[in-house]
């Protein structure tokens, strides 16, 4: 009988202790950037070269990054989200997410594209995501990525370039292949309460076209939605396309995340060599009469 007050006191103390530690959160954004040949991406500029010697330009990159997660020191994966990212939509380059629990995170992982559980026709009914649909005869669902541009082909012409990744299929469409892949790697991220944190996620575009497979636009051609060999090569090359860096909150507490991202971008752009811009007529003139085999790199020489 005398024990009752003691038990009640203990229970009350436990309740108070458990209430004493409410979940605490910090803010996290992920900024997306792109580099090609060590330079920040400049769209619509015929100034890039890949490992196979193709000269190319990029007009836009549109892609899905899904199931982004952070693993804490206890091994628990904390979901961050699924995102559509589009170089034509500036606001899509900064991924906003729900507050993240305070703590240390050691691993970041995400899926490039959409896995078979998510990649269902009709999942997105509104643009821009719905514009990514992948036709049912080709497997349905959505493009993982559209990378559009142009390249100088073997004939010395500027040919369209549509690097579109998604579900692959064999010749008679009797078999389909999932070409999404998971990217996972370490991150040393401390999320502090009510602080802003930024992960800078970078796509090194030229890595799509080398290691382990030399990807030659003249071999794979302008369009690859119905070319599983090309899809497979890009899937394998994609493993080292993404890198990331963690930025802590800047000293000035009132500095907004956008300003932090801008500061980072400015620093990158300042350090990068300046690309020269494509002039269609001069390129055509330069290409005229050249040996096609010589054009891929030489066409860009000033």
């Amino acid at each position: 009988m005398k024990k009752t007050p003691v038990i009640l006191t203990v229970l009350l103390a436990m309740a108070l202790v458990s209430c004493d530690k409410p979940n605490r959160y910090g803010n996290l954004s992920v900024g997306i950037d792109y580099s090609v040949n060590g330079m920040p991406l400049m769209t619509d500029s015929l100034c890039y070269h890949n490992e196979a010697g193709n000269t190319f330009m990029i007009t836009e990159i549109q892609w899905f990054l899904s199931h982004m997660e952070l693993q804490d020191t206890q091994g628990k994966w904390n979901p961050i989200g699924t995102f559509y990212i589009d170089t034509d939509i500036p606001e899509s380059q900064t991924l906003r997410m729900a507050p993240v629990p305070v703590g240390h995170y050691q691993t970041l992982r995400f899926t490039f594209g959409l896995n078979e559980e998510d990649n269902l026709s009709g999942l997105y009914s509104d643009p821009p995501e719905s514009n990514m649909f992948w036709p049912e005869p080709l497997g349905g669902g959505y493009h993982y990525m559209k990378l559009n541009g142009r390249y100088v082909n073997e004939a010395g012409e500027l040919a369209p370039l549509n690097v579109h990744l998604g579900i692959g299929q064999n010749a008679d469409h009797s078999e389909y292949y999932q070409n999404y892949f998971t990217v996972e790697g370490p991150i040393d991220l401390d999320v502090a309460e009510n602080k802003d944190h930024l992960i800078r996620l970078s796509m090194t575009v030229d890595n799509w076209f080398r290691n382990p497979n030399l990807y030659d636009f003249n071999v794979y051609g302008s369009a690859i939605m119905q070319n599983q060999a090309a899809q497979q090569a890009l899937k394998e090359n994609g493993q080292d396309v993404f890198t990331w860096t963690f930025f802590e909150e800047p000293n000035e507490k009132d500095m907004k995340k956008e300003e932090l991202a801008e500061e980072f971008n400015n620093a990158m752009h300042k350090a990068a060599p300046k690309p020269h811009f494509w002039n269609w007529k001069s390129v055509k003139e330069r290409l005229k009469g050249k040996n096609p085999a010589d054009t891929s790199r030489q066409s860009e020489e000033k």
Partner: protein
Amino acid sequence: MTKRIEKWLCQMLVAILAIAATSCKPEEPQYAPTPYDLQQPSYFPTRNNIPDDNPMTVEGVALGEKLFHDPRLSGRDGTDGIRCCASCHHREHNFEYGAPIHTHHAMLPLVNLAWNRTGLGWNGGVATLEDMVLAAVTSPVEINADTNQVVKYLQKTDDYPTLFFKAFGSRDITFINIERAVAQYVRSLVSADSKFDRYLRGEAQLTEDELKGYELFCTEEGADCFHCHGGGGLALMTTNLFYNNGLDDEFNDPEDRSSITGSHWDRGAYKAPTLRNIAVSAPYMHDGRFTTLDEVIDFYSEGVKDSEYINPLMHHVMDGGVQLTAVEKAQLKAFLNTLTDENFLNEP
């Protein structure tokens, strides 16, 4: 005594007359608009362009429909007052004219525009349907009206003040409310019952040729139409975006997409129109240069021209087009014909 009775009778008569007069007075209509239920299939977008200050109502749509078909929208009478929206926008032709017309551009269909959020017109330069009404009413090559005159004219009519009251709560007609009413009507024009819709809903089967045509439509190695004109996963049958599709290799149109964006990369780019009811939407392209679907298919098959401005999605340009056989052209056309919504086109 008699005088008192007479006086009493007079008072009674006055009272009865007063009651009778009051009861005969026409009942003042109430401003209680009914929300309009915009019918759409589950596979259409969820986000539309209905502005907060112009919600669709049954009364607003009905008023818009009346205005759309009423030559008095020109603000003129007699032989000079014969133009209204419906003079050129014929339902049986997908709300286009159905023949070449002497305006500065070919027409675009007025269907499923409630889900168009990228600007109106071939270059996307008109932001809203409300703005489009103003543009069409005042354009010298369209209705060519004076908005003040239109308002004055409609205000004098017997019927319109009451209809405007029911739709917008005021008998005083304004051109803004005219724009709002017509825009509501145009937003109500939903075409979603073609054979292809019924196929998507599992209510009909396409023929073998139509299915082959659909496969051509949405494969890169086929006709590759889907990147710009949608398909099962994008059932508006357009992205509503702007492309240079290789019609020309020289560009002199001051009203192409580049006139809106200021980007020289948009030279020769125009909106990809919806392909819903495309079989009855001739003439085709922004300048109406093709009069039949066969000509359009021939162009995409063998007539595409390269230029620095052509969209990269036109990846068959190095071959001059998608190079379809005669059989494939017929199959593609068979599929395009499944996009015709007879119920919509023949609605009274």
